[in-house]
């Protein structure tokens, strides 16, 4: 049993592995179910009566979630008008901004990470920039882009690019020295050295950055929709809050959680596919 406890497992036969995966899934969701159950209980016991209106039970939230977002016709993939109006534009901006940040952040981070000089010029800027709350630079983006999609996308990009950049940078910096020697000996050009050695070696950290930044972009997507917006989950959330539509507000919060979970799982699939070697060399199991 202590093998389980230290997380070191080697090569279980397929069947055992499948069984484990299934019990893993079952376990995961049963824990989730228990958590929701406790929450349901808490809303009626722990929460003082005066505030109970602020904390509707999960059943109410679930019902609201369904009615507000997912009770649409089958022809619209069960999305309601609210969902097409608020969820889809948010999602598009979020994914667009995240993709832009990922590309720029990784390219910049990896190239900076392997060039000691360039990084010295920019590093202070990176730490300066990432400490600034995105909300406080919104005016600048308004000046540049008005209340356009570009403005919202840039708020998200501004908020998350630093994370991706830093992880890519750290990843590129901590490549096994012997592998870099190898690149030097075999006279790999800059581009080949990056693509064959540095990027794969940095990949575990790059993915860590991507995962952290993904949920961060959801947060910033919400933030970017607080100013001058006419749609979006953040817009919906803010309105629900202002009008004391608490179940609606909770439904949006839960929706954000679901969004994060789904996007993260998708990213995890990609990671698993690309980084099979890493999981195997490190003997990581799910």
């Amino acid at each position, binding site marked *: 049993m202590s093998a389980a406890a230290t997380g070191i497992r080697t090569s279980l036969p397929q069947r055992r592995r499948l069984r484990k995966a299934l019990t893993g899934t079952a376990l995961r969701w049963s824990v989730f179910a228990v958590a929701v159950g406790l929450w349901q209980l808490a809303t009626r016991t722990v929460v003082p009566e005066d505030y109970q209106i602020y904390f509707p039970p999960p059943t109410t939230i679930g019902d609201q979630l369904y009615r507000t977002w997912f009770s649409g016709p089958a022809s619209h993939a069960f999305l309601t008008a609210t969902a097409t109006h608020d969820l889809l534009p948010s999602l598009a901006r979020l994914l667009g901004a995240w993709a832009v940040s990922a590309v720029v952040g990784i390219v910049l981070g990896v190239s900076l990470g392997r060039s000691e000089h360039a990084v010295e010029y920019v590093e202070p800027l990176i730490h300066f920039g990432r400490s600034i709350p995105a909300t406080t630079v919104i005016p600048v983006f308004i000046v540049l882009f008005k209340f356009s999609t570009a403005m919202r996308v840039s708020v998200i990009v501004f908020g998350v690019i630093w994370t991706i950049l830093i992880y890519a940078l750290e990843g590129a910096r901590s490549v*096994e020295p*012997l*592998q870099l*020697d*190898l690149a*030097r*000996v*075999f*006279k*790999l*050009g800059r581009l*080949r050295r990056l693509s*064959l*050695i540095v990027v*794969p*070696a940095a*990949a575990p950290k790059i993915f860590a950055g991507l995962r952290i930044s993904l949920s961060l972009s959801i947060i910033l997507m919400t933030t970017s929709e607080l100013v001058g917006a006419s749609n979006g989950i953040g817009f919906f959330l803010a309105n629900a809050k202002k009008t004391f539509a608490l179940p609606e507000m909770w439904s949006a919060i839960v929706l954000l959680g679901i969004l994060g979970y789904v996007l993260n799982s998708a990213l995890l699939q990609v990671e698993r596919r690309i980084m099979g*070697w*890493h999981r*195997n*060399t490190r003997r990581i199991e799910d």
Partner: protein
Amino acid sequence: MLEVKNLSHAYAEAATKVLENIDLKVDSGELVSIVGPSGCGKSTLLRTIAGLIRPTSGQIRLGGTLVQDVPDNLAVVFQDYSRSLLPWMSVRDNVAFPLRGRGMDRKARRAAAEEALDAVGLSYAARKYPWQLSGGMQQRVAIARAIAYRPALLLMDEPFGSVDAQTREELEDLVLSVRANQEMTILLVTHDIDESVYVGDRVVVLGRHPGRVIGDVAVALPGNHDQITTRELPEFVHLRAEIGRLVRQAAEANPAA
């Protein structure tokens, strides 16, 4: 071909010297074995020749030009072979990827990689990943990679340390035949004195604390190399005894703190 002049190296400012006043000349096409006690600076010497570390003082010339950076047309088999294999590439790709710089197309690279893997007896493992191989197999992949690259100068740091006696002999012969066919210059670090005599045209013995050349023995064995007959030659037996004595002396030198 290679000329090391008055080379000294210390790893850090204050530290004691690892190498001191090394002088060494290697002709084109020569195969020089380097032996010496553990920690005497053999790997350090190879790394300075490869241009991977800059020596504290002294010069290295390759074909007349000063080595400032990693020279072209060089291959290294690192002592820490398992770390030098890239875990994200299959065995074949690990062997093939340096060939990109050689202007070879994908197919040619593959063919060359497969040929080299075959030479080290690993063609059956081409599609595996490094972490699926035993230690000895990994070491042979590193050797295959260096050979497939067809460098003008090949540096090998204890390349046969993890393989069994039989495979080791085959690899020794492989290196000899590669050298003969391709006009390669080879420096080979080894702990096996028999091996140093068997494969080397010369054996350089390094002493310790600090690392200095304490012997440079020319090997002149008659006839073709053959694992059984060559090792039975009286010249062979004599040489191994001589070199063994030198290493033994060096190993007994007292280590500085």
